[in-house]
């Protein structure tokens, strides 16, 4: 387990590089989130919603066909079975409860593929709160079904029309909205990114994934820990949650799959750790993709949920301290892995999650070793892509 220092730094990464206009809100959150997150009342509400509403705990499934194919023991952490179809709901339930504790009445969020937007609109409907989701104009066109879902849930979807009109611009718009509405609004950020204390809040809310992995793995195998934990990394929330309880246990190898898009050297990639360098994005000092003048560049991945030019500061720290390794996985490799899982196990994964599954081809896993892979979401939202790519 690992927490940032009091200023929000994991080593040199993180912090809160924010305009003065956001400072009171961030300071307020910083001063009380620890206390709220560890209070009995909050924990009780959180776990009852996670269990009865989201459907937790999710299974740790021993994928025997995949295991035979790779001649190792593959375990799948089934976050795809959550309500709304991904791990994103773990975070939005936790943050909306935080918003309520802080007396906020209006919720804003950013979304790329729409998964976090849907998960936010869902809990806003549940809590009867006003909800505005910012989404890049380009993504609105690419992800029509999720836009409709958010609207059906009662959220207003506002297009981000500036810059490249994708996830990073939607995040900028959400930050601007928060600047303009400093007193009644809570920003539910979708990953372990943004200014401190967000990376820590989201890591802790997603740590339920890793904690369940540890517990179920022990129950099923009698062993204390697996040999590997594998996750995909967009901003890095499902990975941070999956890794969390194992970070201080060097016996567990932690592997993250970054989206290489068309390839690391193609210029069309979202692998911010493999291809980017250090800088400040959305209030955090971390690895990001930028040009020689420090302008943030547009990433590319077939998977909209991994199409972000930065990464959470915790991952930058785990990378430079060699505690975790981050491996670029291309569109093609992810598609192959998605089809393979579908055919071998009858599980259609999200394209994001397929990047983690593709790691099975990127490393040698030995007979008898235990490899846990987090399937962060289900593939329903990606059917259009799969139909096109697989001629279905």
């Amino acid at each position, binding site marked *: 387990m690992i927490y940032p220092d009091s200023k929000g730094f994991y080593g040199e990464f993180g912090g809160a590089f924010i*305009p003065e206009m956001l400072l009171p809100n961030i300071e307020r959150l910083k001063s009380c989130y620890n206390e709220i997150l560890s209070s009995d009342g909050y924990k009780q509400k959180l776990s009852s919603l996670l269990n009865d509403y989201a459907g937790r705990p999710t299974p740790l499934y021993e994928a025997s066909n995949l295991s035979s194919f790779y001649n190792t023991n593959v375990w799948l952490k089934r976050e795809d079975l959550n309500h709304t179809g991904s791990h994103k709901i773990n975070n939005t339930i936790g943050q909306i409860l935080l918003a309520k504790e802080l007396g906020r009445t209006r919720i804003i969020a950013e979304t790329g593929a729409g998964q976090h937007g849907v998960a936010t609109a869902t809990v806003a409907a549940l809590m009867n709160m006003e909800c505005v989701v910012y989404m890049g104009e380009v993504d609105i066109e690419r992800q029509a079904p999720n836009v409709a879902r958010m609207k059906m849930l009662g959220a207003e979807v506002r297009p981000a029309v500036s810059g490249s009109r994708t996830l990073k611009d939607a995040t900028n718009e959400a930050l601007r909205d928060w600047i303009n509405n400093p007193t009644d609004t809570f920003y539910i950020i979708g990953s372990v990114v943004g200014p401190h204390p967000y990376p820590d809040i989201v890591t802790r809310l997603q740590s339920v994934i890793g904690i369940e992995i540890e517990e179920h793995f022990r129950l099923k195998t009698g062993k204390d820990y697996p040999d590997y934990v594998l996750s995909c990394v967009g901003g890095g929330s499902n990975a941070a949650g999956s890794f969390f309880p194992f970070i201080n246990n060097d016996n567990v190898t932690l592997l993250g799959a970054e989206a290489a898009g068309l390839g690391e050297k193609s210029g069309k990639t979202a692998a911010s750790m493999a291809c980017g360098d250090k800088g400040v994005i959305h209030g955090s000092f971390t690895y990001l993709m930028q040009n020689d003048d420090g302008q943030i560049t547009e990433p590319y991945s077939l998977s909209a949920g991994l199409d972000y030019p930065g990464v959470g500061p915790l991952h930058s720290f785990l990378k430079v301290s060699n505690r975790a390794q981050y491996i670029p996985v291309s569109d093609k490799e992810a598609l192959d892995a998605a089809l393979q899982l579908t055919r071998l196990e009858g599980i259609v994964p999200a394209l994001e999650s397929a990047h983690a599954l593709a790691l099975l081809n990127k490393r040698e896993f030995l007979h008898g070793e235990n490899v846990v892979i987090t399937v962060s979401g289900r593939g329903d939202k990606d059917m259009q892509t799969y139909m096109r790519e697989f001629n279905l």
Partner: protein
Amino acid sequence: MRLTNIFNNKSDLLSVYFTAGFPELNSTISVLEALENAGVDFVEVGMPFSDPVADGPTIQGSSTHALNNGISLKLLFEQLEEAKKRVSFPLILMGYFNPILKFGVERFVERCVECDIQGVILPDMPYEIYDEKYRHIFEKRGVFPIFLITPQTTDERIKLLDENSSLFLYMVSSSSVTGKSSGNNMQQLAYFKRVAEMKLKSPVMTGFGISDNKSFKRVCGYTNGAIIGSAYVSAIKNSVDIESDTLSFVKRIRG
């Protein structure tokens, strides 16, 4: 001319923000000349960034446009070196931190000195991070940051920022990004009065949402003057004669 002299000798100061490399890559110098000829007291030169989170649509648009024109920090400093020979009013730079980090903070400060830049406004660099990580680099060379205060800033923090300011404090007129017309007037008035009554050691300039003679006059009643950004950027956006459009813009503001 030094900024401190201006604050000591004049009131109702008018400062203008514009985006470097906008509307044309090489307009930076002509815009500066036009602003000096029009009698503007000092200028904030905007360093364009791809992701300006504290800015509204007007400055976002001008930034994107300037980046598409090919502006970079390196080029901007070359323009400013030339500008130094042509204008004599004080210049400060305003922009986000990442391009500076990429350029190299020490090299950035060095170039500021070479171009006679007296201060910098870095909206996403909070005082605490400046103080801990970068203060020594700036102070050593006599380039000073200008901090923002907002309606939400506590008295205690305003005092802290005041004590650590060498040039002036930038009072953000309402809780908003740039380019929005000012919010609730009663609330704003109370904020202006609160800050005025604190009797700060630093001069105070008011910015965000100042766009006409009325809003200019209003803030001059409480502070040393006003900073105008979006309204000026809009005024020169499609201008065919920057010199005369700037002159009439400044006349309109001063009244």
